[in-house]
């Protein structure tokens, strides 16, 4: 009903044409060690338009998924070499994600990320990658585990990096006689293993998380007779470092109100616009600070406890 009302509001009139629909307020790019990149973005679309054409960051794309603010999977069709047409039918905010093959290239041992887009984006480099050249000044940078995360400005950017920090110079002579005690990993492969193992571990983690989720559709079983520990926002901040100040404010408010509140209440109490709050809770969910629980037509935001569902 709420959805229908929202659609009605949107289409009964023709106006608000000045709104910047189609803007990409936030794009995140994660570069994998094999040169593929995963892209996620939120796109504001005009609810009065039945469809929307979204530009892609490359031409070779797979695993494309587009959902609207209600979690509805949107039908998508290739509209050009690097664009997709989405059937939005009244949606106002669309989240897209896909893997792209052609924004990272490799020459010898140097990888090069190249992109030229008209909005800022976040770029997460592969774990252990060392940037050895770039032609744009990042607006911000920090580290996430072994990965460098860059907040990149709009415009052309080219970033060269290496993932294998050991250099071999040709010609490489085969070892004449292996040393008797040399049973450990040899130079390059040892370094690569250091890079590969966290990846494999990450994949295992993701896999375990999926298994846990797929086997626990109703969320964690309640512990009868057990009182949950009181929620301390500082504990959440310690567990999830690097949260933005405005996101910490959300976490504090939820902790002070029993650990779970509705998204609409958060909007009202913290005086944030709908899309800003939506983005903030999505961000907190991605960071592992909260869980978003869909209830009928609204979202409940719950602090994720240590060891809780991922």
């Amino acid at each position, binding site marked *: 009903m709420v959805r229908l009302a929202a659609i009605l509001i949107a289409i009964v*009139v023709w106006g608000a044409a000045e709104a910047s629909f189609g803007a990409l307020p936030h794009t995140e790019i994660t570069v994998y060690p094999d040169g593929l990149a995963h892209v996620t973005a939120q796109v504001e679309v005009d609810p009065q338009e*039945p469809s929307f054409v979204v530009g892609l960051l490359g031409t070779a794309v797979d695993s494309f998924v587009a959902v609207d603010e209600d979690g509805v999977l949107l039908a998508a069709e290739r509209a050009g070499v690097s664009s997709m047409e989405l059937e939005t039918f009244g949606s106002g905010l669309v989240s897209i994600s896909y893997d792209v093959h052609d924004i990272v290239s490799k020459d010898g041992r140097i990888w090069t990320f190249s992109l030229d887009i008209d909005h800022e984006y976040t770029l997460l480099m592969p774990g252990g990658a060392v940037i050895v050249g770039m032609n744009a000044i990042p607006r911000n940078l920090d580290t996430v585990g072994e990965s460098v995360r860059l907040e990149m400005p709009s415009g052309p950017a080219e970033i060269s990096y290496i993932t294998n920090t050991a250099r*071999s110079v040709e010609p490489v002579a085969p070892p004449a006689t292996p040393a008797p005690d040399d049973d450990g990993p040899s130079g390059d492969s040892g370094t690569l293993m250091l890079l590969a193992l966290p990846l494999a571990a990450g994949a295992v983690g993701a896999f375990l998380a999926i298994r846990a989720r797929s086997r626990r559709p109703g969320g964690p079983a309640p512990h009868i007779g057990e009182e949950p520990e009181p929620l301390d926002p500082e504990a959440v901040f310690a567990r999830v470092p690097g949260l933005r100040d405005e996101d910490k404010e959300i976490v504090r408010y939820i902790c002070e109100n029993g650990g779970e509140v509705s998204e609409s209440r958060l909007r009202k109490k913290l005086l944030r616009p709908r899309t800003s709050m939506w983005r903030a809770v999505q961000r907190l969910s991605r960071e592992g600070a909260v869980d978003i629980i869909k209830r009928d037509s609204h979202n409940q935001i719950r602090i994720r406890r240590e060891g809780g569902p991922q």
Partner: protein
Amino acid sequence: MRVYLAVAVLVALAAVPLAAADADPVALHKLAKQAQIQAQIQVDPADPPRVHELLALGEVRVEAILNSTDAEAAGENFLAAMQMFSEAFQLMNENGQEPEDDQIYYAAVLERQARYYGQLLELAETYGVEAPGEDLDALFAQATAQIEAGDPDVAATLERINHMVGLFREQIGAVAAQEDAERALEYAALYVKHLERLVDNAEELNIPPDGVELMLAIRDRLAAATEPSEIISIINEIITLKQDLDLVKANQLELWMRQTQTTAEQMLQQGVLDEIEYAAVKATLDRFLEELEAGDLDEAETLLTRLNAWLSEQ
């Protein structure tokens, strides 16, 4: 030895968090310093003189980042240093070789598949589609173990995962397509009502008779359309027609009215407004509609402006 030195440097650098900054010279210096250290580790005495020259020039620029008088100068030094290191690495790269490592490749593929599968599981829950379950879980576990063991059979396992995930995506897509068709019909029905209202108010909205005829013809086609793509096409025609008829002003006001109505409803639900206040809001909105239908857009706008000012004070 170089390898272990490189790893030690990487670990040491990883332990030092890069400062968060908006083009902060300290953070830029740290990033450029990483490239410099990596270049120093990798440069070989046999490399061309140009490589050594570039590294020396780059080092000067790295140090200049921190000594820059402002952020702009720091940025210029950063870019210059990175340009020199980049060129040096390109020259070093000419004799370089990269051993391929399948383990890294497979681990990345598995990580992406796990991420994609996780996304599909959420969608499956939304659409009530049964997940592949333990068969796929077992394949993920098998692939993980194979990667850790360096087992080349992981390629076949990943292919099976890819196939099963693809089928799962198709299942979800099939269910979603049915609901998509229903959404399209609901959306079309709202546009049909909207067209009818425009036709009813054609005189007040200064819509000429041929415009009304066109609207009625489009309404009939839209009411009969069933395919989402056809509905999209017809609605795009309506949008173009409305642009041609310049129906912007009245429609903007009506959009604002609907938004105001929603806000008032939410305020009532949240207890910000009581029933009496909400009834007063509704009465004002009814008056607004009367003014709109009578074609008095200025009066309608005034009513709405006052109402919104009052609501914002609650």
